[in-house]
């Protein structure tokens, strides 16, 4: 083997034990499953906002009551034999309504996929309804208790600690079906960048892990 390549491999292998922790950042480009579901557009997967009456689009994500954002990050890039020491979901508020908006983040408990919408959690290979429309079923569609509640008072990034959820998924104690974000308070409003359009990297999950 070439002497330099051998040296390179030795350096990389040698570095591993001295690195106490490693952080990876997953973004929307790593995700296959993302959706914005809405009571008013019961069959659409990308009801990000109502651009004109009856026309829903994915250019923005406007979180309001009766509209929910779903996202699942695959965490299989975390190698086996690690311990999750920290996990943060970055929520970016690009525009907000008057006053504070409280955004609840809950684990989704049921498998969802193609055709996900207000009525169905998937339509392929066959149609499967949510336990309660809009993925509102507590302890069936989604966790009863929020993993985090973000109080949005201004535009900008909010780093939300969701270490416990990622640990659950990583250890296999719970299946990773991602999160659902909702605003439950009347009048709440938050605009977020759409993963389907605009620049990349607005949706970030930062996971720090170290060898067990």
């Amino acid at each position, binding site marked *: 083997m070439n002497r330099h390549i051998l040296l390179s491999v030795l350096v990389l292998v040698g570095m591993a034990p001295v690195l106490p922790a490693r952080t990876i950042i997953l973004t929307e480009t790593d995700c296959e499953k993302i959706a914005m579901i809405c009571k008013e557009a019961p069959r659409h997967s990308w009801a990000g906002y109502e651009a004109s009456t009856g026309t829903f689009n994915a*250019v923005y994500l406007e979180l309001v009551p009766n509209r929910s954002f779903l996202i699942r990050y695959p965490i299989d890039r975390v190698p086996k034999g690690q311990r999750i020491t920290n996990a943060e979901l970055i929520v970016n508020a690009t525009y907000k309504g008057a006053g504070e908006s409280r955004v609840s983040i809950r684990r989704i408990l049921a498998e969802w996929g*193609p055709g996900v919408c207000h009525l169905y959690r998937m339509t392929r290979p066959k149609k499967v309804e949510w336990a309660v429309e809009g993925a509102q079923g507590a302890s069936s569609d989604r966790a009863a208790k929020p993993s985090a509640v973000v109080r949005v008072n201004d535009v900008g990034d909010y780093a939300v600690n969701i270490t416990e959820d990622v640990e659950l998924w990583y250890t296999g104690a719970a299946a990773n079906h991602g999160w659902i974000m909702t605003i439950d308070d009347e009048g709440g409003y938050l605009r977020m960048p759409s993963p389907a359009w605009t620049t990349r990297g607005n949706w970030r999950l930062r996971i720090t892990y170290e060898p067990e």
Partner: protein
Amino acid sequence: MSRRFLTPLTLVVALSFALRASAQNEITIKVAPDTVVPFLMPITLPGITCMAVSDVADALVIGHKTDKGGFLTVYRLDGKGSPGPHVTVTLPRPPALDGLPNYPICLAFHPKLPVLYVWQDAALLKPPPEPVKHPGFATFDHLLVYSVAGVEPRLLASLARGDEFSQSVRAGSVALDAAAKRLYVPNLLILDQPDTPAAVGCYRLGDDGVPMPPDPTTAKPGEPIKLFKRMRHGAYDLTGTPVGQGFIPVSDDVVIVGGLYGPTTWDMSSSRAAFGGVTLYPYVGAGYYSRIIGHPTLPVVYSFAIGLQFLGCIEHSEGFLTLMPQWSAADGIVCRSSPVILARHNQIAVGGEGHVYLFDLDAKGKFKGTRVQAIVASPNVEALAYSEKFDRLFVPIEPPEKKP
């Protein structure tokens, strides 16, 4: 820095890029060496704007525009799919439009009958076309239906005239549903709304493939054939002409329409949420440039942009766009034509500048990130047509200008 330290550093950098490159939704399609595509068949004719091939009629039809008006060249294909004898057909234009050349925008064949649909418009060609309000449009038919069963194409129907159709538009498409009961048409206007937004609609087709009245029992003899379905109010995603840059009819109620912002679902059964679009970054508002096409067997929509290098695709479920789109940037290309799908090869082809590009698809219909490309002797390849039966990709070649 010593080479001894550079090598490990290079590996670390390479590793970090490899980790980033694992993102599946955003890929770069690298330049491929020019090669010979054995099923590519050049067609050398001037002023080609559109093409269509029928595996039912064994016919290849080419639309042309000239400064005197539009015409079609209709080829018969032989047993190997090679063009044989041809005839030309001048597209009809009313005398009232004298001085305003007409031109074919798009062509489509009936999937079961030797019937051809032509959408045409008219505008000044030089200087670049500008929208004009010309009284002659009152008698100008945008939709022409021909039988290509015989040697000479025969005009079966001529319709779609009047104020509810946009004028002097240079792009659009027509498409039939799988049952061949509806023909979707582009570039309509909604006249009773203040800003007359754009719209699309469809005609009902009879068993002979000819448009028929929406309700034959109430139709009056001699009355112009009306649209069967049409948008009654404007939709943000379909604002402005051209609209209908591709149709993917999925069911009687749902069709995916190519609009200003990319693919948009039109759910005719919904009064509350009739439209839903996903704008495939970065070509927002690229009305004249956006083109969509659906995979013939997989629930995937592809979006291309004329003049750009970006290709996108997204799944749909019963016509509703779903899950994350995939974005691709194809190094060194400029799209110049609407795409065509080559199901037999699991590829999607698009014309470019002096090239035809064939992008490989995976089993789910997503871009694999690889491509094949072939040089063609034409500065811009603005139309393509593919025969699944003969496995021929027809490519227009602009003949060299004759020296005076």
